[in-house]
């Protein structure tokens, strides 16, 4: 699903650097996510995957380097503006509104897309159009029957599914998924992998994930992050065969 080469990539990261004291958490990282591409980032614990994600979404300022969203430089923009420009994300540790129902969590996503409304007269829970959109996504992630349940009453796997629905409902230009399968059971993981396969091509996705089976099955390209550096970027087959990557650490993962 790559579009014509003249279109800017959905996300382009150039020479991003971030250090904490002596630790180079992000060390000259450059990578692109083409439109419709599912780009996975793998790497051992402490490789700087989460630090990279927080810089992309704007919670953390890089020391140097640039981040382009759809061709526009967003490096200096705060997180909420990047979100409005179409950056959607799920969190490694789920960030949901526990007192809200499942449906309200998705409605919030739709409401917040334009920065939120100062309308104090209308109840979003009566907005037929938004409810339809939200219910469709809840159905897609498999939470259709739980719309009226409080988010805090969901199981771990269900919370992860809701995270995905919240991120997807607003039709993001780029979707950052930070270990969406972490802590999921086999059945839930399989369902999510199925969903991601379904979304593939329609969304530009950056996937950080430890589940190697899923990554190798889903990703168009994989970047391998070690000690803050991208040591290799290529297709699943290329990554598997690359001696450098193998030597670096793939052996540990019994792939």
């Amino acid at each position, binding site marked *: 699903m790559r579009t014509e080469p003249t279109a800017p990539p959905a996300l382009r990261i150039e020479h991003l650097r971030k250090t904490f004291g002596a630790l180079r958490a992000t060390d000259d990282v450059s990578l692109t996510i083409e439109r419709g591409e599912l780009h996975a980032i793998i790497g051992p614990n402490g490789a700087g995957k989460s630090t990279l994600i927080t810089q992309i979404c704007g919670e953390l300022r890089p020391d140097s380097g640039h981040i382009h969203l759809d061709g526009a430089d967003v490096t200096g923009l705060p997180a909420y503006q990047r*979100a409005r420009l179409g950056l959607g994300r799920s969190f490694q540790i789920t960030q949901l509104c526990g007192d809200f129902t499942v449906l309200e969590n998705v409605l919030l996503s739709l409401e917040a897309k334009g920065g939120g*409304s100062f309308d*104090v007269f209308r109840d979003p829970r009566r907005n037929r159009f938004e409810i339809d959109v939200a219910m469709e996504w809840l159905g897609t992630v498999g939470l259709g029957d739980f719309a009226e349940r409080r988010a805090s009453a969901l199981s771990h796997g269900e919370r992860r599914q809701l995270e995905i629905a919240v991120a997807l409902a607003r039709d993001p230009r780029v979707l950052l998924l930070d270990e969406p399968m972490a802590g999921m059971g086999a059945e839930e993981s399989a369902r999510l992998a199925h969903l991601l396969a379904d979304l593939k091509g329609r969304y530009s996705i950056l996937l950080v994930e430890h589940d190697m089976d899923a990554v190798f099955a889903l990703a168009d390209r994989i970047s391998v992050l070690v000690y803050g550096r991208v040591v290799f970027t290529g297709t699943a087959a290329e990554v598997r065969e690359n001696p450098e990557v193998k030597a670096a650490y793939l052996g540990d993962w019994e792939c």
Partner: protein
Amino acid sequence: MTASRRPLLFTLALFAVFATLPAVFALTGWTGGMGLATRILIYATAVVALDLIIGYGAMVSFGHAMFFGVGGYAVAVVAHHTGLGEMPFGGSNAALVVWPIAIVVCGLLGFVVGWLALKTSGVQFIMITLAFAQMVFFLLVSVQSWGGDDGMMIDRRNTLPFVDIGRPTTFYYVCLAVLVMWFAFCRMLVNSRFGLVLQALRQSERRAVNLGIAPLSFRLATFVTSAMGTGLAGVLWANYARFVSPDMAAWTKSGEFMAMVVLGGLGTLVGPIVGAAAFVGLEEVLSTWTQHWMIVMGPLLVIVALYRRRGLVGSFLGGDRAH
């Protein structure tokens, strides 16, 4: 959508009880009842406003009495200078002129205080709101032409078209109408599109920001709204007592407001009305026994805080939702 109807029914029943109280007082011949009930309504207006920011916005203001005081002083000051012929356009004693002025002044003060306080959160937020309230308090104490320590007397209540709020019963019903409208507005607000964002910020600011929400504007708008509602209560108080003093803005008053909110049920809007009634009612009863009525009230607050985390009515209202 499928939210329990209980809170709404409870609220309607509560307002119905308030509506019948004057008749009850007339029948029983309890002369003090009217004043007591009026005070409850006025405090209830203030603490519903406070619940809006604490219970729904997670902004713990420990200086809300400043808006109560400023609202009251606005009425007294306008009356004072109108009496001296010093007001532009000859001044006014009409509620429809004076009350909006008072509310706007409180809104402006709320904007400044909120904007500065919202640069922080948690304990710092509490401290900044308290500090501003103390500044207002000492300002009121030090302005001699406005009575300083002694406060100011107000010759007569503001005037409303068609009704004579000089009559205690009429004034009571005006206070009840104000409370009902203010409550209805707050309830609409928390259930609105705006309220959805506000409550999301309370539960997970990180989530909200990553969805596109700039927190400050929503919190500040709520803080200003709350300041205006509390100012309105101050306006009513000045008209009720026909007297204002710096004590209206004292930090102990802020503490009482907070106690009423917690006593009734944080984040329920209707709970604080019950809290105000319980607090003011108990104060009335206990203070006839001893002037150290806090000796009884204090342990009571501790018990409620420990064993009824959601206040006197929170758990009765059902659901775990703040509604």
